[in-house]
């Protein structure tokens, strides 16, 4: 591999990646400093199946192939490889090989974490990107948002402790970050939704996600087809809150009368911003679900 002289070119390429576009210039610059442009001859193995993912590659010119077991992905200019593996901290298993003479941008995975810790905006952009990818894989989305397999009933009152217990039982929320969960449990946020009522209008802005304490919510696709049912301890709306914009196209309707905690987007993202470990663990959890879906490991919703 031949390394080109440092230039602003990595910065330009990073800026064209949709999920990094909105980062302030100085933050993107800090990340670009950790990236290098590589010219690789045809046949170069960028990562062997024995190595865990330590870098994210963006193909700038040429084509490459990412092979994991039976699954093969062809990569062309603008395609990225390795982001989910790096975020999920996945073990080895993917082989990435240049199919033609190629130019590749290489971003160090450890630097991605360091810069995300330094600049919360980057962490939030990554969370948004992984949430978007998860939404394109409905069964994985359902698995990521689902409650525990054996839910226990909560007490009658959802006071601060009740809310904290409800949050503690959400599998996708890392239970070791209890201080951040206590912060989320602070504001009173209980709401009741009668059976048959929608949790959100598809076009309305995603202002909150919901931690189900009682009842069940039916998740439906754009045309009303059922994707699955979420029960106690699940968090419908989480990916929409992370990526921002409107709730649609997924729809959510109370299947049984629902009691839920409403986690306001602004509060939720502030807590993630203040507790990096919470955000990074959440990112790892969501990325793992996307990877599982791509490997066909996710069971149907």
């Amino acid at each position, binding site marked *: 591999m031949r390394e080109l*002289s*440092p*230039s*602003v*070119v990595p*910065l*330009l390429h990073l*800026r*064209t990646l*949709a999920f990094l*576009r909105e980062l*302030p*210039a*100085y933050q993107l*610059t*800090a990340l670009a*400093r950790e990236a290098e442009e590589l010219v690789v001859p045809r046949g170069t193995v960028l990562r062997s199946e024995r190595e865990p993912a330590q870098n994210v590659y963006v193909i700038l010119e040429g084509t490459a192939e990412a092979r994991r077991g039976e699954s093969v992905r062809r990569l062309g200019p603008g395609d990225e490889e390795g982001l989910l593996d790096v975020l999920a901290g996945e073990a080895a298993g993917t082989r990435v090989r240049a199919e033609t003479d190629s130019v590749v941008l290489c971003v160090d995975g450890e630097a991605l974490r360091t810069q995300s810790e330094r600049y919360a*905006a980057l962490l939030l952009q990554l969370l948004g990107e992984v949430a978007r990818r998860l939404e394109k894989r409905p069964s994985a989305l359902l698995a990521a948002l689902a409650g525990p397999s054996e839910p*226990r009933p909560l007490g009658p*009152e959802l*006071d*601060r*402790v009740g809310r*904290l*217990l409800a949050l*503690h039982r959400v599998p996708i929320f890392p*239970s*070791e*970050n*209890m*201080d*951040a969960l*206590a*912060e989320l*449990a*602070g504001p*009173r946020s209980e709401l009741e939704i009668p059976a048959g009522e929608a949790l959100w209008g598809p076009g309305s802005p995603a202002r909150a996600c919901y931690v189900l304490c009682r009842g069940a919510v039916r998740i439906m696709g754009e045309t009303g087809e059922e994707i699955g049912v979420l029960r106690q301890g699940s968090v419908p709306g989480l990916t929409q809150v992370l990526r921002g914009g409107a709730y649609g196209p997924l729809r959510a309707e109370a299947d049984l009368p629902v009691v839920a905690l409403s986690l306001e987007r*602004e509060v939720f*993202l*502030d807590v993630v911003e*203040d507790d990096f470990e919470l955000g990074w663990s959440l990112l790892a959890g969501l990325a793992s679900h996307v990877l599982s879906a791509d490997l066909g490991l996710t069971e149907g919703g």
Partner: protein
Amino acid sequence: MGVREFPALDVASLESLLATLNSPDEQRVAAALDVLQDQGKESVVPALLLYHPSSTVVIRTLEIFQSGRREDAMPLAEHLLEHRDARVRVAALRMMSVLRPERSLLERASDDPDPSIAAAARVALLACGWVDVEPTCRSLMSAVGRGDESVERAMAAAVRSHPHGAVEPVLLELLSADDTETLQEAITAAARLRSPGLLTPLMQLLPRRAVREEARSALAAFGPVGLARMMEALRDPEVPISVRRHLPGAVALVGSPQAPSLLLDHLPDEPDGSIRFKILRALGRWRNEQPDLPLDRRLLGDALEQALSTGYRLMEWRRTLERMTERSPGRRSELHVVLVALLRNKEDHSLERIFRLLNLQSGSEEFQRIYLGLHSPRPATRVGSRELLHHLVLPPMRHHLLVLVDDLQGEAPRPAALERPRGRAGDLAVFEDLLGSGMESVSALAALHAAELGLRSLANAIDACQPRSEEHARTLATARAALGAEVT
């Protein structure tokens, strides 16, 4: 090289960027334009880019020509006044009104059937002193909040382009808009106008995530005047916590050499833990950029001792609770698990604060690296980091810090110095501490856990506990009632 600077633009990079301007992908063109502008290379952007089919690219190019004062592009901009997209017409008019303001053109535009063009023209006329201030301001202000975002955005961008005292009333109105893009333009305008009357509205925008970064930068742009007002607000308990919480981040952007000392002076008086953490984070960023930054070592030492003492206290409470369930595994309820996890997480946060303070004291990032090493999944890295810590920290702090580190890693026996009286008396003393800890979640969890364990002798301690909120009072009452029922 500071983190906000770009690497030098070499000839090959410049060629690559200029080639990218020919891309059919508007996002790539926009990215190249951003990089060129960040590099101060507005002069190399070809004027013919104004013929680009994408409105986004044309508007971005007009902005760059406006800030780079590219008068050579004026004839092409004039041509764009007939563009099919009103946003392009507004941007062209704005650029022309800044580079070469022409009264007759603006007066004609102020009667344009498109309200966004008319609003932009009126702002420019106002700033140039060609219309009566009061009626024009009144008419412009009445357009804010009517739900027409294109008018608000055009007005805000025009105000940003003409930061003149005459437009301040309009700007104040725009700073209360709902639309994010309008607010971003208005905040940039406020940073350029820098009138003291804009400081409070800017601080009130800090809780809004979508514009927080812009609001912080704008506040910092006010320099010493802004710094004084922000510190005043930080010290004022009447200022909402949602605003105060984001002030350290804004203060950190002020270039004043006094700013770090002012924040450090406030640290011991700050009652809110999250604000204290943000102060440390802000100081850390300064320290990284200026390793020789002078900071009061006595204040740092005091803060370090306080953080260490907090960490120890949390460790002692948690270990007592753990010991309780070691003796009686049946007491390991969900409340117990959550309370222990909460105390452990808080203890870890105390350790993080300690390392941030050590970084500030040392003037290097060495302790940050050690902290990361201590959290590494690789045992060898953790051991190496601990050894380094042992080497770098002097007694008596060394011993206390290593006890805390070992405790969180679960790799050392509990030190004798931390022993509480064993058995029930020690347990009860810890519950009393937890109830009165001043941390609402900890206190509420402890009260309910005491109730489920039937620790009736804690009834008086629960009665004596000062609730921090109505909800806390209700939880304490619930716990007290449960214990009372057992007494009878």
